[in-house]
Each structure stands twice: as structure tokens, then as C-alpha cells.
């Protein structure tokens, strides 16, 4: 276990170094979600929603979009490309365990995502009067659970993706769901019924609801927008945390079933 963590940290640092040397990935993974966030705030800013400005609403939903890019898309492409290039197989022939190898990439993705969230916090703080997060522990917990879910889903999806080129296509449905069927841009209550049904179950919804509530200190679970104390926030977050734990279980099963180390097998 301890060596798994040491290996994962080592491999995560290598992953970040490699990301720095890969401009395409830099743009797709780091820059794109930030540009999207900027576009959203520019087009939607000004209005009020559930007691907060639309700008604050969108910015606090942005970490959900970033989960899609920095974690999900990034890891599907990484896992698929490395499997096809036999890198995963070579690593598995070395000292690291499967948990260390996959955990390393997941940890690298977590680092990218945290970095982006920190940028968003600075950004929010510049745009809004009271722009710093209120309940940091809850915010972090929501984020960590979200990263875990999307890393596991990425491992599963990479297993049924034949090449790195196909990976760009394979991730589209999930990216689309995150953009349309999640409370990034609008509360669930404002969605058409059909989309709302989907939004209720996708894992990005509880992540955004937890993080937004923790950030602003208002109720964004049912969009009443009442001011909530720390304790109330934790209690209100419990069902969402439950949904994410279920997703982690589902993701683990899917990843175990679908993930492939070797292009030759399966």
C-alpha cells in the first residue's frame, strides 16, 4: 500500500512533466475548460439566480466541466494511447502494481484539476465581492469523489476504445452530457423534463451541487438558495455523497471488467 502511494506520486510527477511537453494535451486539458468558462460568464453574466449572480453560479459550476476535460478526457486518451504503445504493459512488467500505475495517472489528473480549481477561485474572487469558498473541506470532498468517479470511468472507457484517435470520439457523449445534462449553466429545475431525468443520475450533478453549496454557503441542492450553516451543508450533502459512492462502486466494477493492459488481449 505504502509503495503503491510512492509509485503513484512518482508516476504522477512524470505525467505532469509529459503534459508540459505536449502542447495538444495542454490546450485540450488545461486551456479549453478555462476558455469555455470565460465564454459562459461573458454571455450569461449579469442575471441573478437563486440568490447569487449568474457569474458566480457559472464559475462555481466550472469545476464540473473541468472534471470532464482534465480528468475524464485526459485519462481516456492517456490510458488508450499508452496501452496501444505498450507502455502500460512495460510499466506493469516493472516494480509498480496496477494500482500504482493507474493511481499515478489519476493523481496527475487530480493535480491538474486542483490547479484549475485554484485558478477559478482567484478568478471568482476578482469578479465577486465575497468570492472565496466558505466550506473548504466539503468542497474538497466533493471534488475528490468526483475525480475518483471520472478516473474509474475513464479506465473503463479506454478499455473499449481501440486507438488514441478513436478516444477523441469515444469521450464525446460524456462531455456532451456534462455540458447539457448537469447544473453547470442552469439549475435542474429549469431543465426540460427529459434532460432533467438524465441530470438527476449523472455523477457530475452531485459534484457540482456539493461544491457550489460549499463554495457559496447557500442551498444548491434544491435551488432554494437559502443561506446554510456548515453543519446544514454537510447534512444536505449526504444524499449527493451517497450517489457518488454508488458511482465509485459502479466505476470500479466497470473498470475491472473493461480495462485492458495489453492490445493483444481482448
Amino acid at each position: 500500500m505504502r509503495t503503491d502511494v510512492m509509485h503513484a506520486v512518482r508516476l504522477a510527477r512524470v505525467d505532469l512533466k509529459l503534459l508540459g511537453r505536449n502542447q495538444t494535451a495542454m490546450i485540450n486539458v488545461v486551456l479549453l475548460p478555462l476558455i469555455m468558462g470565460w465564454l459562459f460568464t461573458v454571455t450569461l453574466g449579469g442575471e441573478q439566480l437563486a440568490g447569487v449572480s449568474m457569474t458566480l453560479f457559472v464559475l462555481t459550476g466550472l469545476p464540473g466541466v473541468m472534471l470532464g476535460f482534465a480528468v475524464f478526457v485526459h485519462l481516456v486518451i492517456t490510458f488508450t494511447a499508452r496501452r496501444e504503445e505498450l507502455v502500460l504493459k512495460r510499466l506493469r512488467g516493472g516494480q509498480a502494481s496496477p494500482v500504482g500505475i493507474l493511481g499515478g495517472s489519476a493523481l496527475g489528473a487530480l493535480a491538474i484539476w486542483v490547479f484549475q480549481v485554484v485558478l477559478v477561485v482567484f478568478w471568482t474572487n476578482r469578479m465577486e465581492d465575497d468570492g472565496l469558498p466558505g466550506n473548504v473541506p466539503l468542497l474538497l470532498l466533493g471534488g475528490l469523489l468526483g475525480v475518483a468517479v471520472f478516473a474509474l470511468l475513464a479506465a473503463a472507457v479506454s478499455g473499449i476504445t481501440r486507438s488514441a484517435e478513436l478516444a477523441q470520439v469515444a469521450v464525446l457523449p460524456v462531455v456532451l452530457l456534462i455540458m447539457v445534462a448537469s447544473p453547470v449553466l442552469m439549475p435542474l429545475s429549469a431543465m426540460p423534463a427529459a434532460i432533467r431525468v438524465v441530470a438527476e443520475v449523472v455523477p457530475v450533478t452531485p459534484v457540482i451541487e456539493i461544491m457550489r453549496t460549499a463554495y457559496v454557503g447557500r442551498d444548491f441542492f434544491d435551488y432554494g438558495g437559502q443561506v446554510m450553516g456548515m453543519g446544514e451543508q454537510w447534512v444536505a450533502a449526504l444524499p449527493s455523497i451517497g450517489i457518488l459512492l454508488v458511482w465509485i462502486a459502479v466505476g470500479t466494477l466497470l473498470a475491472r471488467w473493461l480495462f485492458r493492459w495489453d492490445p493483444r488481449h481482448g
Partner: protein
Amino acid sequence: MRTTQAAIEVDGLRQGYGDFEAVRGISFTVREGELFALLGTNGAGKTTTMEVLEGFTKARGGQVRVLGLDPHRQRRELRPRVGIMLQEGGFLGDLTVAETIAMWRGMAADVGRRPMTDALALVGLEHRAGTRVRQLSGGQKRRLDLALAVLARPEVLFLDEPTTGMDPEARRDTWKVIQDLKAEGVTVLLTTHYLEEAERLADHLAIMHEGVVHTHGSVETVVAAAGDQVAFRLPISPEALRARTGDGLPFLAGAAPAAVVAGEVTRVTYTLPATSSPDGAHAALRPLMAWAEKCELPLERLEIRRGTLEDVFLRVVGDAR
């Protein structure tokens, strides 16, 4: 000091892919400190066997043990003690050679091994330390791969075609690296298509074809089975020969002559049967000499060639087909 304990045991191993059975019940043992070469045709199942022993896949049937452990179930325990060089393994192409080595050294240190400090020098790649791995040539990549496999000072080393794609000098250097490791007591299981490599390095070897081991034993006993070759030329056509001698060429130690006519000369070869006595060829030649004397025929360009591993390989595979 050589112990006789088994480092690798394979007993009735079966493995396949879907309906296809790639390895059909093979058995062999590699003792501690020994070098065992697995030879065979393309698709014989060598890599498949290695992948079971490396713990990548679970055997369908039979028993395998590496250092007394089940390589698949007890992979975690085994991993620090084993070095693996795959037939084809990938690298992170954007890392430099030095960064790649550093990463692997770090991972070895994390599990409590004392990694080599001179792994790059060992494989002669110091001058490429700053090069991105994707820019290395095929043979250089192979050498880097070897460095990664040995850097944690493994007790058992799996080398799947370690010298494929290397130039003759690099191949010799690699042999030296392998021999030095063996001298330090490392057990090595290696596959190769270079029979000279096997003859030079191996203590024992096995020849596989279509999932079955057809021959195995010490290099000496396997090569002895090849039988020596006797060849010469007669400056006379077979008709003239028959007219002159009546009953033609003699049998040597029970081996029939094979004659090929080329114009006015006849080329003759004998493949002597395998014999355990080292003077087999000498004894077999006596009747030939007597015959030549009697017929007053010169044996032109007479040569006696020891049987080689290649002869055995071709015969084994030919028989199996």
C-alpha cells in the same frame, strides 16, 4: 557456490487465447543460477509461456512456480525479485533516456531494492542520456529496455528476444552483460531466434514448435543429437563410379550416403547418427578411408563438420511438420 534448487518450474503448462491453444502442456525446470534458452518457430508459444511466468496471465492448466511462488497470484511478492524484458515493450517517448532510467530507479528504490547506479553505462548508452526516447534507434531502445530490466538487481531475469535488432557488436556486449549477471548468480530465462546466442549462453535449452516442447536438455546433449556431417567430392560421375566399384558408396555407421551430381563430379554427404562417444566421427571414417584406398579414388575437399544446434532445430521442426 551453486545450489540445485529450482528457480523456475513449469509443469504441464497450458495456455491459449479463445479457442486457440497456444501452449499445449509443456514442462521444464530452470535451476537457480542457470541460463535456460527457449527456442522455437514463430508462434511456437514462447512469449505466451513467458507471460505466464511473468505473472501477466493466469495459466489455463498445469503448474508454474517462480522462486517457489505462484507468479500470478503472488505477483506482488515476486515483483521486486524479478526483472522483465518484453519482446516488445513501450516507452514514454517524450522522456529522455536519463529521465526514464531515473523513473525506474526511483520505483525500484521505493520497493526497497538497491538499484544499479551505472545501468546506462552497462548497456553503452551514456552518450544518449539526454536524448528523447522516441528518437532512439531500434537497437538502442532494446538496450534501454535491458537496462530497465536489470536495474533493480533481480534474482530471476526474463528476456524475450533480448538481442533482436541489435548490431553484431551490441549483441556481443549484451551477451557479456548477461554472462556477468549469470556469474553473479542471476537465473535467466531467455528466448531467441539466434541459435549461436543460445549455444553460447545457455546451460539448458528447449525447442518448441506449435505449443509443444520437442527437444530439451543441456546444450551439449541436444547438439550431440545432431550427428556429425561428412562431406567430400569425387571427380567422377555416378555411372563411372558404379562401373569402377560395383556396389557404389559404403554406409558409414549405418548412415546412407546422399549423392548429388554436378557435371563430371559427384558431391557426397553423410549425416552420421547421433552418438554419445566423442570419437564417433573418427570411427565412422575408417571404412570410408578403406573404401577410397581400395577404389583408388581421391576424396576431394573432405570435411567433417560437427552437428550444430541449427541442424537439430531444422530436423526437429521438419519432423514435426
